[in-house]
């Protein structure tokens, strides 16, 4: 299969089941909403080192938020329910509670699994906090120097998917970067998905384990490193001099498939040789995103 001359490899991305929460942050102005969201989702690229993965899903207009102010929705992902509670309490407490004018709401009200967040953060109020039940949902008003921080008591949590991906194999670093930027732009703000890495792009794709250090969980994906073509079992076709990866997390497989389709289509441009994907032989992750199936429009 080729798209505009770019070869689509007959392979698949292998992804994992993760827990996902949707956090809605609102504020007086988009400036402060974004400030809080960027801090909340900072250092959240991979559970390997960050214990969570997070990203801004999309901006919300005032009519879409619970308090009628501008907002953003953030998708926040962990490997377990217990981790979700710990990470949300840490991060919302340090990044949203601290940010002027913001409030924090659950973006998955229909989810059956609930994680207690506001009920833990309320203790910052040192006994002066006030709870209010509005429409059956409990909120906490925590007094702060600016006024009050409003946070919902519990946040919904679903089983989501982490680790959808594709690789852009290009003739040059410039071509790889241009294709990755186009892909990330095409995939931005798609409901139900986030790109947790910087700018949506990963340059340091990894393989499981290490050749030398047994305790390492992951190490460089040498098969796709152009500089190692001569000294390792390379997977790179002739002419490839740079590879970039796009990693996609989402609320469900169809959301990831749709984002991958848009991203791959955008990445198929001049000086891109092929599109591949990362997998572990299909033995580790339950979600398999076959590139050709996705591009044919019949995805998982």
């Amino acid at each position, binding site marked *: 299969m080729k798209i505009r001359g770019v070869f689509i490899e007959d392979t698949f991305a292998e992804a994992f089941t993760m827990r996902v929460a949707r956090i809605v942050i*609102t504020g007086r102005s988009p400036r402060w909403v974004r400030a809080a969201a960027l801090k909340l989702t900072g250092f959240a690229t991979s559970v390997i080192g960050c214990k969570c993965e997070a990203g801004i899903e999309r901006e919300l207009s005032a009519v879409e938020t*619970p*308090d*009628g*102010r501008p907002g953003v929705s953030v998708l926040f992902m962990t490997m377990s329910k217990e981790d979700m509670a710990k990470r949300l309490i840490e991060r919302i407490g340090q990044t949203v509670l601290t940010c002027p004018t913001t*409030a924090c709401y659950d973006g998955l009200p229909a989810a059956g699994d609930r994680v207690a967040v506001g009920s833990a953060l309320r203790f910052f109020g040192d006994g*002066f906090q*006030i709870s*209010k*039940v*509005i*429409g059956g949902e409990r*909120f906490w*008003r925590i007094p702060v120097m600016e*006024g*009050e921080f*409003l946070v919902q008591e519990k946040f919904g949590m679903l089983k989501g998917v982490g680790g959808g991906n594709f690789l852009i194999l290009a003739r040059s670093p410039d071509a790889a970067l241009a294709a990755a930027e186009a892909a990330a732009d095409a995939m931005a703000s798609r409901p139900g998905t986030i790109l947790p890495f910087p700018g949506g792009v990963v340059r340091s794709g990894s393989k499981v384990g290490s050749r030398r250090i047994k305790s390492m969980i992951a190490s460089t994906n040498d098969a796709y490193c152009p500089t190692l073509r001569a000294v390792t079992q390379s997977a790179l076709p002739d002419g490839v001099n740079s590879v970039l990866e796009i990693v996609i997390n989402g609320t469900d497989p169809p959301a990831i498939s749709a984002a991958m389709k848009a991203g791959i289509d955008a990445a198929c441009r001049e000086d891109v040789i092929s599109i591949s994907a990362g997998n572990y032989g299909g033995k580790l992750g339950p979600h398999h995103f076959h590139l050709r199936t996705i591009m044919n429009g019949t995805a998982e």
Partner: protein
Amino acid sequence: MSVLVAKLKISLDQRGDFGEVFTPPWTTLDAGGLAQRPVYLERDGRVAFGDVFELSGSPDGSIRLLGDLGRADRLAAGLSDGTVIIEGDVGAEAGVGMAGGVLEVKGDAGPRAGAAPLGYKRGMSGGELIVHGDAGVEAGAAMRRGVLAIGGSAGDRAGLSMIAGTIILFGLAGKDPGLWSKRGSVVALKSIEPPLTYAYACTYQPVHLRVMLGRLRTRFELPVQRKHLTGSYRRYSGDMAELGRGEILAWTPP
């Protein structure tokens, strides 16, 4: 028709205690079952709800009551789930001790709506009590949780001895709102005179009111205006004669 409708079939020329009509598990009852619930009339004594109201429709957890219910007291007392809509006025102690669900009064409510039954320590402990018109004295007295919204004017001593919960006054507040409140919130969108035992704290924009008032506007079509959502509120802490952890939030014109 998927909602129960109860139409008053006699002229209610005597006061009646309707306090046992909407106690659990009323939402599971059909029209026939609900018709057998007891009502206590001042002169005629115990009669069946079906002797006073003509019931029709199928149960879906909600009911509309039609007719002049100005002498119907204790309607929806102890309500814990479902929605009771009164299409006109209602008598005294509507929703006393309610614990959940929704009681919506399209007209005026008599004294002590949402309050504690006389002799009891706790008023409504959950749910939403919406009075579109005026409310009598001591609305929400001793309420413990929940929301009581009054679209018109409130009588004196609204929120008397509130333990917690929220009372929202769209119209004029009577004398001594929130008197002896422990942790309750009284929100006033028009003029209000806090009791002397309240202390001014600051003027600010409470975000939770945007959520709460937004719900009252969309769910119950109460007259929330943009200025109420975006405006500032004076916060008074009180009642200092009690715990002092309650508040009066008074909307402030820009």
